């Protein structure tokens, strides 16, 4: 029983990180209909920035906050400079562009910080909170950061006019322009948010898996799985999907197929959901009267 609870707790911790990655993917998907394959590497690069700051003696939370800001503006910049000229390009050109970004960030990180793994500090102590060896403060902290971020985003999209304008631009760009919304800036904002969320995911995962340029590769696959399981067009669903994938992956890994095959389980979930419920478990099909 204790082992079971431990598995759930560590599943929720990795689930929180998958949820962040999934949320970043959803952010770009809903505003541009694209899947950003470079999401993981952008997060990794941002985490290295944070590492450099902390290494130079900047307090953890200051480094955390400024990394999110830098990542936000870099995402904005990437959309304006690289993707805006490709607005009317066919989707395959964009896929190539995302893959190029992925390898550029990967190579750049290796060049600047080398490919050897680095230890990344965690702001949360590894103490056992309830004194029974089941749940650590680190695990609670990771889950809490994810939930706070989700709450902030929900408020932003639901209750601010800027959030409303972003949703409108994603749904019907032509009509949004006729309401005075600067659609192309809304897309840039979506990229900025995705990049900032990615940075959070990177900084949360780095203390667990160690920092190296390839640390996000596997996590991105789980993030995809989370986004698809929950519904790629739905932020709440993606977060729930991330948690579901994290917990199931851990349980299936420890009880049924062993840790080596865990990643293939994520892919099985993706295929299963796409076959049975393509909009995702929490995906909502938008009703339209014609």
């Amino acid at each position, binding site marked *: 029983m204790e082992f079971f609870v431990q598995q759930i707790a560590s599943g929720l911790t990795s689930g929180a990180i998958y949820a962040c990655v999934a949320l970043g993917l959803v952010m770009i998907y809903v505003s541009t209909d694209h899947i950003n394959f470079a999401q993981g590497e952008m997060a990794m690069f941002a985490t290295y920035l944070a590492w450099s700051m902390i290494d130079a003696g900047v307090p953890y939370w200051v480094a955390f906050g400024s990394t999110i800001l830098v990542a936000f503006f870099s995402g904005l910049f990437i959309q304006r400079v690289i993707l805006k000229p490709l607005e009317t390009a066919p989707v395959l050109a964009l896929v190539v562009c995302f893959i190029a970004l992925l390898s550029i960030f990967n190579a750049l990180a290796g060049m600047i910080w080398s490919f050897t793994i680095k230890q990344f500090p965690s702001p949360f102590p590894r103490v056992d909170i309830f004194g029974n060896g089941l749940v650590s403060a680190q695990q609670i902290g990771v889950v809490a950061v994810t939930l706070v971020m989700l709450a902030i985003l929900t408020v932003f999209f639901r209750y601010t*006019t*800027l959030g*409303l*304008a972003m*949703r*409108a631009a994603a*749904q*019907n760009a*032509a*009509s*949004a*322009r*006729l*309401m*005075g*919304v*600067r*659609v192309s800036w809304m897309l840039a904002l979506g990229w900025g948010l995705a990049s900032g969320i990615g940075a959070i995911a990177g900084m949360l995962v780095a203390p667990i898996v160690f920092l190296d340029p390839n640390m996000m590769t596997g996590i991105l696959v789980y993030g995809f799985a989370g986004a698809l399981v929950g519904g790629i067009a739905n932020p709440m669903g993606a977060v729930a999907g991330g948690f579901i994938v994290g917990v199931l992956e851990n349980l299936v890994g420890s009880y049924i197929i062993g840790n080596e095959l865990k990643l293939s389980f994520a892919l099985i979930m993706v295929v299963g959901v796409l076959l049975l419920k393509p909009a995702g478990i929490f995906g909502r099909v*938008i*009703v*339209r*009267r014609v």
Partner: protein
Amino acid sequence: MAAILEVKGLSAWYGQSRALFDLDLTIEQGGVTALLGANGAGKTTSLRAICNMVRRTGTTILDGADISRKSTEDIVRLGVAHVPEGRGTFVGLSVEENLRLAFHIRRDRKAAERDIEKVFAYFPRLKERIHQQAGTLSGGEQQMLAVARALMLAPRLMLLDEPSFGLAPLIVQEIFRILRRINEDEKVSMLIVEQNAALALELADNVYLLETGKVVMSGPSAMVKDDETLRKAYLGY
């Protein structure tokens, strides 16, 4: 009367094919101008060209200011509200969110809040459906929502693209009655594109007749209404 919008030598293209040929239009301040013509005459294209939604040349002057090179968003922000063909409903947003979208560009928050109430007074049906997903509204209600959204922008000029399209006659009459009231009470000038010529002639003060991208006739609507040869030749009734 002064002109709110002056269009000079407006031409537009879709890819290689030219859809408008040197259009000249004058839209009077506070009035309703109708743009009539058959399918493919260039009515919708004219509205799109005014808002810079298609490749175009020519000059458009709004209230003395040249807006020929401005982006669609900026033209809207200068007070031109375009109710597009197909209604442009944000199907996944609620009725209220469709209207509140205007708050994004409104600086006068208090007046904008009052405008929501005003819009609901014009369209009580929308108030009944305030929390409903806009995609589930009927065609007529979506058309009302499109006009209501445009009204929320507190426009000086409204461009209406076939507000009668695909709607039952009773609904069409209701919408045109409301448009008349909006024109009179809010002093919003209107440029309206219609297939339903009889209806548009009732509402409009001035009329332009288009044929294959050119103006073939223009004048006060009373004149067109009374001229049977003209009506038969161009409007088919």
